[in-house]
């Protein structure tokens, strides 16, 4: 069978000692980058790009790819331990993952994240091997109206993310969207909300916002709980997931993998949505949704699998068509060009060792990450045993260095401080940061695609309903709104009857 032959070819290429070593280097560097806030895979890949010239094309891509999905694993670690999302896709992991850590289930959370990610990595790698070309067609079928509808669905879904009041969640989403608008407008070059400052001309950086409003706020909150300065963050229970937790994770992991595999294909923003979409789905499917936000294991397992699956499938447009889905893929394209390979649909046919070698190495990389991360859980958890008064300055320092490393600008640190202050106020009035961050991420894309769709559609809003995928997504959005709003009507009706 052709697939079998191709896979054998791939594993033989990826299994060579040099390539295994490069894979290991890649995933370890990636994990380190994911754990450290601030610098992300884009920055690391950009810096390592010149080095790749001295490697074989396959070896170079294996290493760089390893850095990319390794960073996904690492980003989950800090999200769970200290509520600091390393990547935009780790924000959702903070919600229940960190709450699990606070309850002493840190080891279990890290284990479930690693195992779920491995399952997702295996399945999505298989998916790429089997259906790369048809899946790439999916990537092409999304135009501006479809992206708009998808992002609208995401924003409505963000309301579901919040476990508190709906009105507050909507308020935070809107505030997040407004923060996302700061900067230079793509279509016209006009500056918005920049107050003439050159720093703001580029917009607010995601890292600055997330570190401030989630990471540093958590530090402030911990310090405010006075007993935490002398005690540890949490009492540590067993390092492994309990039976119930493992059983409860199976469904979310499978569903998350599917969602992530599909959304990761979409160039320009699909991968980020994967974890949010998975969280929303799990919350809606759960029997007792009120557990979410307080350490529900489904809220960790699903999104973790989704974001890893998304990271793997985001390779498809680049490998099959030469179209990069995001900045990381663009750098991989650059690495190929340095080697003298022109990316495009020909690569699959003319360079099968490269194509299948990368696919095989993805699975090997995932396996390596599992083997590396599982034993490390004990190490990470014992870090939590350090008295907080010693741990906190270290976290704050790493945070500061991370924020500075984005633009080498002190102003960013002031922004982080400002957002941390805001985050503290929000927490005190019962507003959550996650919907704000999601609004921040999706808002600009929503606006950009809306305006583009209107120009392309010559001002006719029916363009959103005339196209099948867009129509389907908008219908889903309407259904989701009903789901969110209906329970409230039912509750108020019950209250009315009780009063009688």
């Amino acid at each position, binding site marked *: 069978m052709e697939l079998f032959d191709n896979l054998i070819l791939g594993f033989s290429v990826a299994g060579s000692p040099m390539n295994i070593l490069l894979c290991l280097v890649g995933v370890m560097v990636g994990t380190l980058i994911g754990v450290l806030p601030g610098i992300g895979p*884009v*920055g690391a*890949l*950009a*810096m390592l*790009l*010149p*080095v790749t*010239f001295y490697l074989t094309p396959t070896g170079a891509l294996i290493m760089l790819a390893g850095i990319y999905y390794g960073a996904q694993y690492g980003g989950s670690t800090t999200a769970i331990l200290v509520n600091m999302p390393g990547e935009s896709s780790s924000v959702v992991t903070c919600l229940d993952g960190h709450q699990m850590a606070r309850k002493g289930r840190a080891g279990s959370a890290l284990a479930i994240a690693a195992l779920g990610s491995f399952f997702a990595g295996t399945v999505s790698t298989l998916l790429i091997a089997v259906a790369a070309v048809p899946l790439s067609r999916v990537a*092409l*079928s*999304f*135009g*501006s109206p479809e992206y708009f509808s998808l992002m609208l669905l995401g924003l409505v879904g963000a309301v579901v993310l919040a476990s508190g009041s709906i009105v507050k969640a909507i308020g935070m989403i809107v505030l997040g969207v407004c923060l996302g608008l700061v*900067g*230079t407008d*793509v*279509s*016209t*070059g006009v500056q918005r909300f920049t107050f*003439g400052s*050159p720093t703001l*001309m*580029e*917009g607010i950086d995601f890292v600055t916002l997330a570190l401030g409003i989630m990471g540093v706020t958590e530090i402030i909150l911990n310090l405010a709980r006075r007993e935490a300065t002398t005690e540890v963050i949490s009492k540590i229970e067993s390092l492994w997931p309990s039976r119930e937790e493992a059983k409860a994770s199976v469904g979310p992991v499978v569903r998350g993998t599917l969602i992530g595999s599909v959304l990761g294909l979409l*160039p*320009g923003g699909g991968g980020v949505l994967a974890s949010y979409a998975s969280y929303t789905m799990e919350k809606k499917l759960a029997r007792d949704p009120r557990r979410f936000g307080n350490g529900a294991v489904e809220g960790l397992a699903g999104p973790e699998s989704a974001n890893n699956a998304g990271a793997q499938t985001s390779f498809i447009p680049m490998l099959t068509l*030469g*179209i*990069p889905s995001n*900045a*990381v893929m*663009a*750098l991989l394209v*650059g690495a190929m*060009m*340095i*080697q*003298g*390979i*022109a*990316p*495009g*649909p*020909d690569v699959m046919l003319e360079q099968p060792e490269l194509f299948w070698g990368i696919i095989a190495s993805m699975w090997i990389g995932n396996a390596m990450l599992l083997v590396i991360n599982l034993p490390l859980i004990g190490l990470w958890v014992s870090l939590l045993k350090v008295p907080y008064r010693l741990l906190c300055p270290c976290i704050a320092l790493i945070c500061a260095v991370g924020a500075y490393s984005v633009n*080498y600008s002190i102003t960013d640190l002031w922004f982080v401080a400002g957002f941390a202050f805001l985050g503290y106020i929000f927490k005190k009035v019962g507003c959550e940061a996650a919907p704000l961050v999601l609004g921040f991420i999706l808002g600009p894309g929503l606006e950009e695609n809306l305006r*583009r769709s209107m*120009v*392309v559609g*010559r001002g006719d809003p029916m363009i959103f309903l005339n196209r099948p995928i867009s129509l389907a997504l908008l219908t889903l959005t309407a259904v989701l709104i009903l789901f969110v709003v209906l329970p409230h009507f039912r509750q108020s009706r019950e209250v009315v009857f009780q009063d009688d």
Partner: protein
Amino acid sequence: MNFKALLTAAALLLPATISQADKFPSGPVEIVIAAGAGAGQDIMVRAIAAELEKKWAEPTVVLNKTGGNQTIADGYVAKAKPDGHTILNFGPNRSLLAAKNDPNAGYDVVNGLVPVTQVNKQPMVIVTRNSLGVSNLAEFVELAKSAEDPMIYGDNGPGGILDLSARRLMVDGGFELTEVSYQSANDVLRALMGDEVDVAIVTLGVATSYIKNNMITALAVASAERNAAFPDIPTARESIDTDFAVEHWFGFFVPKGTPDEIINQLHSDIVEVLGTESVKNLLLNGGFEIVGNSPAEFAKVVADEVENWKALMD
């Protein structure tokens, strides 16, 4: 006696300090670009910076200063110390070609930067979506002139070379188009394949594999001569009655006031690096032709470009 010994020692050491000042670079070098990490220009400059670092044995870092319609990058360099340690890599776009003083920029746009050398040049190509059904530029112009609603062209931001080229074609060809902006040239090509935009003028390097695999239709190359890699594509001048010719390039600039010796040394070092295999591979595979001309020649290229685009800028 001790004082004399001190003076002698100082006199002996003096040549050492002078030769220290002669060595360029004498510290870390920053190369600033207006693109983000991962963009085509970023990858190219990083490859060049890596080779320069090897040659100079000094840290050579690439700074991404996006935003402000690319004025943040050139503003940063124009205001830096003119000792050759801060270099700008730039391509033609509105902020360079406008050559008019922008009061918000905070620096002298017209005279603040001095050209060092042109790295490369690349022809642009006019491409359309396959479903439009035109096979050459003349047919396209006919279609554009007779269309009820203006057709749509894609670019990677207002004021960039993709946008400026399209506007130039509109003026030369005598028709109207509506602009739609995307984040990058790759997004524009994807939009072409998805039938969202009708036409775009992009660099040949980005479009090569799309054209070869018939994912989009190439109407004409936007340069004065046909391209060796695509001898079957006519030039714009052959297809319609116009002297339309645009080219994309990147070059290095330093702040005004940088001494000539440093400029010349930068020029020869960069030209040497342009000959190394990794840089050559990258540039040639990206569809670029390597240039590496002298500061004076490059200054003329820039001046010609400004002249070329003058009518459009007002």
